[in-house]
């Protein structure tokens, strides 16, 4: 094992890291990254925001969804080096101090959180939807959230949470 590693160190070219600037949840960070570091790795391991999750790493599940300059993107398929100077919002940036955002509160009120692993990505996709379309129909909600997979809830509570957060007459069920 050690032999193989030292052989590789001699023949492989060393890839130089570079410094990028990220504005995450309103705060400025300078991070040292290699080209191969995805946005998920950088947010979790270098900045410490573990709300962003590792899932399939292939773009098939959506748990790594973050907002990049207000657009929902998959962190696993975004190279950090391409985000120099950009604004990133993660789930940690949704609440104002102790006050949860309407969509976060609605997820609790509707029982839309079970294991919780899809939740961060769902919240970011839902936030992006409501910023673009404040009163989405059920079909529009499902279309906007189609890129976020949930194994637990069966999705109905999640859709209801988006309806509640957008003030469309759905009442809390979990109070």
């Amino acid at each position: 094992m050690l032999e193989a590693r030292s052989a590789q160190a001699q023949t492989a070219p060393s890839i130089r890291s570079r410094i990028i600037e990220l504005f995450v949840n309103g705060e400025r960070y300078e991070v040292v990254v290699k080209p191969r570091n995805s946005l998920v790795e950088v947010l979790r391991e270098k900045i410490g925001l573990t709300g962003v999750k590792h899932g399939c790493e292939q773009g098939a599940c959506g748990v790594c969804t973050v907002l990049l300059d207000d657009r929902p993107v998959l962190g696993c398929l975004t190279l950090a080096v391409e985000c120099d100077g950009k604004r990133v919002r993660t789930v940690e940036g949704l609440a104002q101090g102790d006050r949860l955002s309407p969509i976060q509160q609605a997820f609790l009120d509707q029982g839309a959180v079970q294991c919780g692993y899809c939740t961060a990505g769902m919240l970011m996709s839902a936030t992006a939807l409501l910023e673009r379309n404040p009163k989405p129909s059920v079909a529009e909600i499902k279309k906007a959230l189609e890129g976020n997979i949930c194994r637990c809830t069966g999705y109905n509570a999640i859709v209801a949470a988006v309806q509640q957060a957008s003030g469309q007459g759905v009442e809390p069920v979990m109070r």
Partner: protein
Amino acid sequence: MILYDFEYERARSLPEAAAMLARLGPNAKIMGGGTDLLPNMRLALARPTTIIGLSGIRPEAPRLTLDGRLRIDGLTTLAALAHSELVATHLPMLAESAQVVGSHQVREMGTLAGNLCQETRCLQLNQKHDYQFKSPCYKRGGACCYPFPRNRPGTCWSVHMSDIAPALIALNADIETVSGTGGRRLAVEDMFTGDGMHPIGLEPGELIRAIVTPLPPANFGWGYHKSSRRGGFEYGMAVIAIALSLDVSRQVCAAARIVFGAIRERPVRASATEQALVGQRIDDTLVARAVAVAVEEVNPLPHHGFTRSYLIDNIRVYLRRALVRAVERARTQSAAT
């Protein structure tokens, strides 16, 4: 599935990217949104030593050219394409085909050129091969094929899954390319090789700059259907794109282009089906006859767990519905358009 170390360079323009590709050789790959390249790199299907990022290049907005065509920059994201008012007005089938790709996140990242140039797919190919696979398949440079073990060496029946390519071919679109030696214009239909091993027929170092589409003629109607298991966030079982136009009386088919996607190594024209329609009076009998011709003519590869007969049944049902819809649209299109 951690990525290996690679170099990254950022291109400021397409000609610069073409020059970088020429300088760096076959071990460099360009990257638009990364939604096709990066998953393949995680699976060790693609192993470039350098990635040339195109995300710093701002695409032109879709626009009408002086000679009355719609010109769309290759780096246009699928979300921008799906929401473009110009595209929705003139080529709604193109907007529809962009809207069914992947998910909102994938559409915000992925580019139009990238969707056309995506690698072909196969259930066994697109998995990590250092676990249960004993040998690499032909496409991975090895000596076997897992889903079709009796195929001749070098034959790869992986499928081109693009949802947008069939629509562009039905609309008779061209691509405009950029390369170190200039660039060329060719039909979208001619950029696919039909060979699962090397599905895209662009030269090394040749990039797509733009997609250029003629505007539809009078009495034009379209039909589009992407069938899938769960109705979202997946590749298609079969994609059907129909562009047809009627004569002045709106009773006779003047022209038809019917394209199937996600059933073979490249999108395929249903030529015999088209010929069964052109010059004929359109009624239920003709539609039924055309579908019967299509079912005979189409030769889908079983893929991703779907059997050949299931895909043919799929096409039998959805081709009829899409044809009916296309004729409806052609008949109700206002004369002023």
